[in-house]
């Protein structure tokens, strides 16, 4: 019997802590796409908070750790546009070309894929079609502009026959998460989130799906604070049919 290829899941620290369901949903989707899922032990943060706050030295050492951790795997899948972009776009920029890690960073960049890109490329078809729902999709900025992720999540969602995909008025506008930005400039971030939830509500969708846990926590928290009856989820949770949560929401 032929063994399935192995794919490493880099779950991201935010999903790890705040949204474990995204990890399980991702794992089940990667498996359904024909891979064996490995969650490399010892994984933590890709270093993005330090990198974007100007702490380049720590970012470099966090990158080195992640690069070495993921080196043995042929496929690396990340359920986040921004963490995937950190690895694919920014890791190679952290090292001098003479540094041995530069080549390793490039190799990792080459084999790392954001989840929806990975699923789309490997011809994944959802088997557990979600019940008839109207879903709005929110593009995360990093995924959209640094990795060009636009059609992949939409194509995956559209394969569910009962799912109606709705577009936001301004899909290219940031939701206001922005990593540490949201706690450093909460007023501005809050207004950006408010604009986004208004756009989401205007679509009439019952669910808003997206590819990043950062945007997800931001939008979900704002929807809840505003008392809007719209559920926010990671696109992986929706595709894997894992929307039911213990709190019954």
């Amino acid at each position, binding site marked *: 019997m032929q063994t399935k290829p192995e794919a490493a899941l880099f779950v991201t620290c935010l999903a790890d802590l705040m949204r*474990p369901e995204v990890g399980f949903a991702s794992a089940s989707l990667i498996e359904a796409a024909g891979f064996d899922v490995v969650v490399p032990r010892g994984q933590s943060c890709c270093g993005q908070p330090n990198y974007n*706050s100007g702490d380049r030295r720590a970012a470099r050492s966090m990158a080195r750790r992640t690069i070495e951790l993921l080196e043995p795997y042929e496929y690396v899948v990340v359920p986040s546009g921004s963490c995937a972009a950190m690895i694919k776009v920014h890791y190679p920029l952290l090292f001098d070309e003479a540094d041995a890690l530069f080549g390793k960073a490039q190799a990792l960049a080459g084999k790392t894929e954001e989840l929806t890109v990975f699923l789309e490329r490997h011809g994944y078809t959802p088997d557990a079609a979600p019940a008839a729902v109207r879903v709005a999709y929110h593009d995360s900025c990093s995924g959209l502009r640094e990795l060009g992720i636009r059609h992949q999540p939409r194509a995956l969602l559209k394969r569910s026959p009962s799912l109606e995909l709705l577009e936001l008025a301004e899909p*290219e506008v940031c939701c206001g998460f922005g990593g540490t930005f949201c706690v450093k400039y909460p007023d501005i971030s809050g207004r950006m989130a408010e604009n986004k939830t208004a756009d989401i509500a205007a679509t009439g969708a019952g669910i808003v799906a997206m590819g990043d846990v950062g945007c997800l926590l931001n939008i979900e928290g*704002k929807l809840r604070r505003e008392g809007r009856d719209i559920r926010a989820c990671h696109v992986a949770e929706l595709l894997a049919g894992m929307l039911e949560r213990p*709190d019954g929401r």
Partner: protein
Amino acid sequence: MEVESGAFVEKARAALDDATLQHALKHIKHGFVEARANAAARLPDFEAMRDRARDVKAHTIAHLADYLEQFEANVTARGGKVHWARDAREARAIIHGICRAAGARTVTKSKSMVTEEIELNPYLEEHSIEPIETDLGEYIIQLRGEKPSHIIAPVIHLSKDQVADTFHEHHGRHGFHTRLTERSGMVREARSILRQRFVKADVGITGANFLVAETGSAVVVTNEGNADLTASLPDTHIVVTGIEKLVPTLDDCHLMLRLLPRSATGQDITAYVSFFTGPKRTDDLSGPSSFHVVLLDNGRSDMMGTEFEEMLRCIRCGACLNHCPVYSNIGGHAYGSVYPGPMGAVLTPSLAGIDKAGHLPNASSFCGRCEAVCPVRIPLPKLMRHWREREFERHLSPSGTRWGLRAWSMIAASPRLYRSMQWTASRFLRLIASNGWIRRLPLAGAGWTGERDMHAPAGNSFQHQWRKRGGRR
């Protein structure tokens, strides 16, 4: 250059609460963002033109000294004079000297952010020379004693009603006593006042959108035609601009002229594009008899050879401001700098020092839309990140942030520490949640829960649960 970015947070808060400002800022979406998208869509070549423009500007900056010399030689050959100003003080002194020699009492002005940068108006006033702004927007803020809030639309922060009040308050002394509220009537009134000023001015000062090395021309784009009147009616024309405005040839300039209005206002071309090349020639019917170009450095050459050199490609179209989710929610005044928004977040610390502009490169969610629309493809988020790195290296970032980042990198480096941290955080969040939701978090988390709720994690960390379930690791 005066920078007041210290109160950024407070000013931003006030801006978010200012209903009139918020209403005015809504125009950005339709007036600029959609207009640019339509203009770009009409021109199939647009993306390739951006690549070429980036290359032209990068080439010019790499050979700036040569092109500046060529430009000066061509200005001189046509009877004009080039003046070199190392900083704002020198620039002001040069301009004052020229005005004094011309016996100037009044000076008309058009299209110059650089004169805002060097704070020319208060200086001229101190020396008993009256500066008169002639772009409608600049004219309005001069009457109001304000600063521009946008590099191409200085009064984007004002409502028509506020402008009506301003005109009503100031135009009485010119014999206009009715408060006009209809756009064309207001413009007609301002125009009739400005016409008198144009005729009487002793010196005209303009900026330049581009300088052309091969001809020695200063190029100005306007929609009101006032730059032509500013430059042609008085006997002396002074062009004041930065050394980075240079392009080698007229062909290069043409490329820039196709990109600038499309990026800025979504226009295929502005109503006026003027090339000023030397003073009036013998057979010219009109024009100034003396033509000066004041080239300002003011920190620009220090950017060359650094990671900020790419910023010198900027053609001041304002597209990054219009597409910035921070700028479009708070307007320009909160930044406390002549140059607001993403381009200002990179340029202001370069010109005034990072110690004076600390918030500016930080107040960005790094959404990257500025870079996506920049006609000369300046990687603005990358350059802002470089400023954050300089701040971090110089210990200018808040100590709480530094401590947090340091702690986080140590935790992330140790699987055991990371595991116990995730476990503790997860337990803590579930403990303070009610019905799975958290309404108030302590410390840095207060910034989060001030604006939104937080969903508590459903259980222990993913890695913890994965291990318990016997998943492959």
